[in-house]
């Protein structure tokens, strides 16, 4: 899905009209503050891309998220840390529509209600998700993986006739360069190394030009060098995209040089730059045990 900020896109495509379906359940079109909210576009007029308010999710009485409130600015890079069971993955699930919250609201921009959109609708609206385990199409080549991720019609009928468009070819090449997989374009994704698969998946997300990119432990299992490259890549992407990185690896979080949110028992415990968070007494208690 190309957006108004189509940076990975070729310039000509930057203003491509969006699939009306992408608007999903959003209330785009009803305007409040004197500017025109266009259907299918993320309204970041208040410079906030994601709002979570008082989100509660309970599984059999256990509250995975407990009145979690969080907001991510447009173009921000944010790291989310927290001990196991703090609710990090559940939060991602709520944002991407996999889990419906029992209470609370989740908005993309000012207008799109994520709790009322399906997973494909949310994906088309501009939220990309990187899973913890690399999740690529192993039986397809690197090129094909990126092609499937390319913006375009998603319907089954039109897919019978779709071909690789010239504009798409450029975007695929660009994404391959960005994640450093250009030499591997014809290789089957199943034969790539673990790190390469992670990057391929990031490339697949980038090619859709998501406004908001969610990354679940993107450096799990990577070497130090690969970790550093990934951190560089994410820092370079911030600004053009908003990124939320869930991570355990403190060394990596340090390399991201960004604002950090600490989750604990389903709600926000502390927020700020890494140094201040690390010196927070409650954070130390949670991490070092009682």
């Amino acid at each position, binding site marked *: *899905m190309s957006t108004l900020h189509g940076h990975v896109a070729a310039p000509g495509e930057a203003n491509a009209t969006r699939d009306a379906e992408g608007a999903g359940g959003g209330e785009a079109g009803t305007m409040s503050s004197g500017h025109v909210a266009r259907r299918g576009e993320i309204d970041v007029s208040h410079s906030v891309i994601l709002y979570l308010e008082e989100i509660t999710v309970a599984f059999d009485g256990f509250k995975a998220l407990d009145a979690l409130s969080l907001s991510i600015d447009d173009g921000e890079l944010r790291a989310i840390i927290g001990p196991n069971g703090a609710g990090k993955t559940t939060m991602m699930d709520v944002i*991407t529509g996999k889990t419906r919250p029992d209470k609370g609201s989740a908005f993309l921009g000012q207008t799109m209600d994520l709790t009322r959109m*399906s*997973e*494909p609708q949310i*994906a*088309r609206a501009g939220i*990309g*998700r990187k*899973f913890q385990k690399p*999740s*690529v*199409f*192993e*039986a*397809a*080549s690197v*090129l*094909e993986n990126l*092609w*499937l*991720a390319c913006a375009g019609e*998603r*319907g*089954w*009928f039109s*897919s*019978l*006739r*779709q*071909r*690789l468009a010239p504009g798409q*070819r450029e975007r695929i090449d660009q994404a391959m360069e960005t994640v450093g997989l250009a*030499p591997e*374009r*014809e290789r*089957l994704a*199943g*034969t790539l190394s673990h790190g390469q698969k992670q990057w391929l*998946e990031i490339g*697949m997300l980038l090619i*859709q030009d998501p406004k908001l990119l969610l990354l679940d432990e993107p450096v799990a299992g990577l070497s130090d060098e690969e970790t550093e490259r990934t951190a560089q890549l994410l820092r370079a992407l911030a600004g053009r995209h908003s990124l939320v990185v869930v991570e355990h690896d403190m060394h990596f979080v340090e390399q991201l040089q960004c604002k950090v949110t600490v989750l604990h028992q389903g709600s926000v415990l502390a927020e700020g730059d890494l140094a201040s968070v690390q010196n927070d007494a409650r954070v130390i208690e949670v991490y070092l045990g009682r």
Partner: protein
Amino acid sequence: MRAPERVTGNARPAGAGGGVEGAAGGQGAGSARPPWAAPVMARSEWLFALALFALVGVLVPLAHVLLPESVGWRPSTYLVTLTGKILCYATVAVALGLIWGYAGILSLGHGLFFALGGYAFGMYLMRQIGRDGSYAQELPDFMVFLDWKTLPWFWQGSDQWWWAMLMVVFVPGLLALVFGWFAFRSRIKGVYLSIVTQALTYAAMLLFFRNETGFGGNNGFTDFKRIFGVPITAPGTRAALLAASALWLLFAFLICRAIIRSKFGRVLEAIRDAETRTMFLGYDPVPYKLAAWVLSALLCAVAGALYVPQVGIINPSEMSPANSIEIAVWVAVGGRGTLVGPIVGAFLVNLAKSFFTQAFPQLWLFFLGTLFIVVTLALPNGVVGLLRRRKEQAR
């Protein structure tokens, strides 16, 4: 029988290097082929398939009609019927191969769509008997036997061939659409879907066993006399049915090939390998699965309609779960994730079946079981997978 992870190397036929099929050559070094035009078969496989098709679909029926019976090598009625039957089976195997091999949906109830197509056309054949049945009445014999006075409402129109053909497509297609929509929307997959399909075909079999259902109970339909007004056992009719079965198989193969080579096929494989990822890329898997599923059911249904006039009988045992499992065996033996594989498998297993059930009838099921174990353990990609790997290694 859960679909095991496919060996990745086999996803692209080994012969792929030979020639680039399709449009727009790749750009830049190392770009051997455009992504959408992955060849489904190597050239040698094409030649083999075409030769086989010409032999089976053209030469055998022609020889059967044209040669006088005194000629020793004239294809016998038995051979013609057997070949026609196996061609129908092979079509079913291709249909299952499409959804199992490429979409990861293992249906163990495909015999149902085959049988429903057969029943829909069988109704027409029953009406074609006219007053030549044992009771010499307009009503089909089994209705007279049950002392029914009029045709049930769902038999109306069945004396028209065009109506029968419409029903052959409509009834199984609608069932597949409704069942598939509920199953895929509820995200039933893997072994659960297989079990549900088994249950579906079993339930249908029990339903059709009842006399009150109105399809001849456990005897089903048989004793056909005519088709389109001509005698059904005449050599010309048999030859034409054989040729039609061959054409339908060819059509099924070509349409599945076109699908697999399109972006649709790529998305199907993507759903098979990483459904969640596909969803987060903005694809809704339900319509993709549903479209492939319904197409697969329709291919089976028409194959069933061609099968019934050739074997001369259709009864509820065609819906038995074991029949549907056997279809999966053909596909597994031939090679999943290929399109020729299911055809090869259907021929191999059914020729073996014909041989065994005549020579050692009591051993057939043991042989089938052994075959399945051997294939699962030794040939995870079936016969075609083995041949392709051999060829790749030889290179």
